[in-house]
């Protein structure tokens, strides 16, 4: 039971974050969009950059707060080799920028808005993610 209660509680916190950001700044809590907006060639400036940096600082503080409250920060050790980590990062960066979103923007925020684009994106990245794990864990 608790095995599913904690994940559901985690999901509830993600939802609280998404609703808070929408209710206050009117923005989608899409991490790839928030981070990507700070990058060249046209990085956000002024207040538009400041709230994005504040959100990112918060993302870093989340596990620290969890550590203070529960004694564990929830961060697991990397499971992939360094070259795989770099390849993964490149693909995640290119893919989320091309596809206009990731698990947060399309998943937590897009699905509740009943966005067709988000349903297609989530179905697609879940499928290729599962396929990739099948290949790396069961075929290679």
């Amino acid at each position, binding site marked *: 039971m608790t095995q599913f209660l904690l994940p559901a509680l985690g999901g509830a916190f993600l*939802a609280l974050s998404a609703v808070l950001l929408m209710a206050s700044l009117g923005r989608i809590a899409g991490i790839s969009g928030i981070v990507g907006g700070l990058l060249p060639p046209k990085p956000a400036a002024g207040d538009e950059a400041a709230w994005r940096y504040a959100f990112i600082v918060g993302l870093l503080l989340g596990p620290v707060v969890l550590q203070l409250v529960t004694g564990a*920060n929830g961060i697991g050790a990397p499971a992939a080799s360094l070259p795989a980590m770099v390849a993964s990062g490149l693909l995640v960066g290119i893919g989320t920028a091309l596809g206009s979103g990731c698990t947060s923007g399309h998943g937590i925020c897009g699905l509740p808005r009943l966005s067709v684009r988000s349903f297609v994106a989530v179905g697609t990245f879940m499928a290729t993610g599962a396929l990739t794990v099948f290949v790396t864990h069961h075929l290679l």
Partner: protein
Amino acid sequence: MARILAALAAGILFGLGLALGGMTDPAVVLGFLDIAGAWNPSLAFVMGAGVVITFFGYRLTMARGRPLLAPNFQLPTRKDIDPALVGGAAIFGVGWGLAGYCPGAAVSSAVSGSLDVFALLAAMLVGMAIVRFARR
């Protein structure tokens, strides 16, 4: 200042949610994607709770007509399914399945100081910037 604090609070809640939900543990994420192996369904509960609560939260929020600290809601308006959306999502999924980090988890996990996570994060920023330059 209120806008900065709101964004900071939202970021903390998001980082807490990721860490509590297991999204910052690659073993949990890869276990969820490993349908043919010892499948770990926990991320379905993260996503399920997150989507259902946001559905009702967004409705309440939108009913107010405008955000508290901004003139209007900035929502995506596109409805077309184009190759960039499908291709991009497909590429993201492959990257997600390779190491088990979505963008939020990559940022939050960096607080552990892991050099491997820094490498993934740096590569992710490069990937995002490449697309932004290509689209300029």
